Each structure stands twice: as C-alpha cells, then as structure tokens.
C-alpha cells in the first residue's frame, strides 16, 4: 500500500511541478530581462519566481550542458579562500559554455599579499571581465564587492554568511528527487549554528511550506533568529539531539559536518562526533522517497557504506551544481 501511495503521490507531484515550471517558463522573457546584470550575493536577492526560473533553466542545461553561449565572454573566479568543488564547478560550467576564465584560487597568488584592499582588487578585476565569481573569508565581502564592481558579482561563499548557488543546487536536488518543492519535511543534521548552507536553505525552503526538523548537539543548535523567522511565517519546526528521532518523518535528510573547532571543550567534541554519523541501518524505516543530501566535503558524518544506498544522493547533488551555475551565469550575462 505504501508503495502505491508513493507512486500516486509522485505522479501528482510531477503534474504539479510541470505546471509550476510551465508558469515560470511562460514568463521566462521577463525573468531573463530582470536577472540581466544583477549580482547574486544572498539567496533573497532573487525572488521565489526567479529562483524557480533558474531551476527550470538548470533542467534545460542538464539535458544539454555543452553550448557555445559564452563565446567571447570572460568570467573571473576570485577565490580569496581555498575551495575545490565550488571553484571547479563554476569553471567547468563556464568552460562547457565556451567562456574564458581568469582569476586566482588562493589569496597567496593575489595582490592582497602586497596589502591591496578588496576594493582595489575588485575595481581592477572588474575592468577585465564580464562577471566575477568570488569566495572570501570575510562575511559581507561579496555584498561590498557588488556595490563597487563594474560587473555583476556571484557570491561563491562569504565566510559563514551566504552561499546562494549552493542553496539553489540544493533546491534543484530536492526538486529532482521529490518532484516538488512544496509541503516537504526536511531534517537538518549536524552543525546548525554556524553552517551557512543550512541557514540559506532554511530561508529558501521556507517559501514552500516546509516542515523543518533540526537535530544537533546542544552547542550547535539552530540560532534563535532563524527559529523566530519560521515562527513569523507560521511554519512548524521540531528540535532534538537524537538523529533517530525524526529520520522516519523526513523527505530530505540534509547532513552537515560537525567541526571540531566549534567546540570549546575538546572532550565534548569527542563525545559528540560519533553521535551524528548516518549509517545504513538507520535508513531501514525511512520513507521510500527520502533522499540524503550533503553540501560536502564529508568527513565521517555519513558512513561510506551509505554511499551505495539508493537513498544517497550527495554525489548527484554536486553534479546538479554544474547545471544550476550554468543557469545562473547565463541569466546574469543575459545570453539565454
């Protein structure tokens, strides 16, 4: 019965989804116009409809990711903080669309080491390119850059603040695995206090009547401001310290890494680190449609055995980032 119910729900979701995406596609021209030359610093910089438009474009790029849309365009990737996946994902997105890439992957190879300010770096680089993708260790650096740059800025992470392209690829992954973004139950696990991906995802998914479950050690609970935000929207959320508590309820389990440096007491970390490990046996009584997401990198919070489980989706999730970033870049450059 459960399986029939699941198939029925999936079909209904797909019908609704097609309808929602048709709506945004019909209005595609106006969204394309609106997004041109806009910076993307925070997930709230794009409206709900604009976010859905990006997801619908990502779907098209997934079908056909190699196109010559960025011929003669130059994208600068300025990584003031090291990153592997995000930088390569952006660079792959641009390369597959025929664009050129300039930039640096480490602050040591930039003029910041000579004492140049962020302002001067952005002012100069924005003369040489059509779009800047930047990651910076300071919170607010991308917003500041967007206000002084001659070209749009895409924030690829500013300290513990925002990482909007990660949020949109998470949304796309949720949408692909669930067939809808509406009325889902999302379980967030791990570092909910400092993790920028969970905060941004909470903001984004709160537009879709989501029920949230927060599971974390006491030191790393979801900050009050986000809980207040959900209360204002009259959305339900539940908190617990035990990972087994809500796992059976969830449509999405969003795992994050519990970082050692977040604990004031090293002993407390040692006690906690193995409590939040997702193992295969914990997936037995989960919903058939449930999928596991993780922004990566993973350390030990998902047991490697889980990688082969049909509910593990985190590697595919990373691949989705490519299409979402292609959609974002082409929209901002006005070439789609």
């Amino acid at each position, binding site marked *: 019965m459960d399986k029939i119910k699941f198939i029925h729900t999936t079909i209904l979701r797909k019908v609704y989804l097609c309808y929602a995406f048709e709506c945004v596609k019909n209005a595609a021209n106006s969204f394309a116009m609106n997004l041109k030359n806009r910076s993307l610093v925070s997930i709230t910089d794009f409206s709900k409809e604009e976010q859905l438009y990006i997801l619908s474009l990502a779907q098209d790029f997934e079908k056909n990711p190699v196109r010559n849309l960025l011929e003669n365009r130059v994208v600068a990737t300025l990584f003031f903080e090291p990153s592997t996946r995000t930088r390569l994902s952006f660079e792959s997105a641009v390369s597959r669309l025929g664009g050129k890439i300039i930039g640096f992957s480490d602050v040591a190879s930039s003029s910041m080491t000579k004492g140049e300010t962020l302002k001067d770096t952005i002012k100069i680089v924005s003369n040489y390119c059509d779009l800047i993708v930047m990651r910076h260790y*300071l919170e*607010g650096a991308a*917003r*500041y850059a967007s206000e002084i740059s001659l070209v749009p800025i895409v924030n690829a992470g*500013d300290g513990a*603040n925002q990482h909007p392209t990660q949020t949109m690829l998470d949304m796309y992954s949720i949408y692909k695995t669930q067939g809808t973004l509406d009325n889902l139950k999302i379980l967030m696990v791990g570092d909910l206090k400092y993790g920028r991906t969970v905060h941004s995802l909470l903001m984004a998914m709160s537009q879709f009547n989501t029920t949230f479950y927060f599971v974390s050690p006491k030191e790393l609970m979801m900050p009050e*401001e986000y809980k207040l935000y959900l209360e204002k929207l009259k959305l339900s959320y539940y908190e617990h310290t035990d990972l087994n508590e809500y796992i059976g309820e969830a449509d999405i389990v969003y795992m994050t890494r519990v970082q050692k440096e977040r604990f004031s007491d090293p002993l407390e970390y040692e006690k906690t680190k193995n409590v939040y490990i997702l193992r295969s046996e914990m997936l037995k009584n989960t919903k058939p449609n449930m999928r596991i997401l993780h922004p990566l990198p993973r350390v030990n919070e998902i047991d490697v055995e889980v990688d082969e489980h049909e509910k593990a989706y985190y590697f595919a999730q990373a691949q989705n980032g490519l299409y979402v970033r292609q959609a974002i870049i082409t929209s901002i450059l006005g070439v789609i």
Partner: protein
Amino acid sequence: MSCSHSGKDKTQLQVNAIREGTVIDHIPPQNLFKVISILNLHKITTQITFGTNFDSQRMGKKALIKIEGVFFTQEEINKIALVAPSAKLNLIKNYEVVQKLPVSIPDKVSGIIKCYNPNCVTNHEKVTTLFHVVENHPIMLKCHFCEKVMTEEHFIFI
C-alpha cells in the same frame, strides 16, 4: 516639565532657557553622552547646556540637552532613536516652544554603529557601516553586509 521651556516656571529645571534653538528632552540618563556623540554636539560652537538625573514622572530620571541656535533635520533626529527612542525635541524661538517633534526609528542606520561581528567586512576594510532596522521593539539591526542581526546590547557607536 516642559512648561519650563516656555519661561513661565524656570525654577523646576536648574538650567537656563534658550532664546532660539533645540531642547532634547526625555533622554535616558545612561545614554546622554551617546546622544551628544551621535549628534556631533562636541563640534558645535554655540552654547550647549546639558543636565542629567532630573526627576521625571514618566521615566523616573531623565537627561536633557539645550542647544542654542541649532535646528536638526528629521534624519539627524532619527539617529538618536537607537539610544533614546522616548526623546522629544522642542524647537524654541524667542524662548517659546514653537514645535514638538517625537523621535522615530529610521529604516536604515548608516555610519554611526560598528558591526559586532568581528568577521564582518566592515571591520576589516574602510567601509561605511549600514544596518537595516528589522524590529522596532526591541530594536534589532541587520548588517547590510554580513547580514548578522544585533540587538541593543551589541551596539558600539563609532
């Protein structure tokens, strides 16, 4: 207390009336010097009188400032709303109160408060701080740059 500004009962407040200018009344005593700093009163060359710990029926104790020959714009006035939301401004002409202005909390606060987040770009680069007022009671400010929300106990005036 405000009757003293009309010149009819000068004995209640032990400070001189002004001929023309602004009286800022109902300032919380603990924030008197913050108001002086926010309005840059230390740079004004006309006569300024300030007093604190006056009895007030409404507030228990209050502070006030009298500034000779200076009138403020609404924008300047609203800056003090962060530290003295209950303040009232009396505009004085020829020793008479000609207008009473309440302070209202602005939508944005620029350049007067430091972001409390040590990792905010405004604490590392030469950037004018900017905050959006997200709640009025109690007042909560969201940094335009790092997006952290702070409450009054975290306010550090520049």
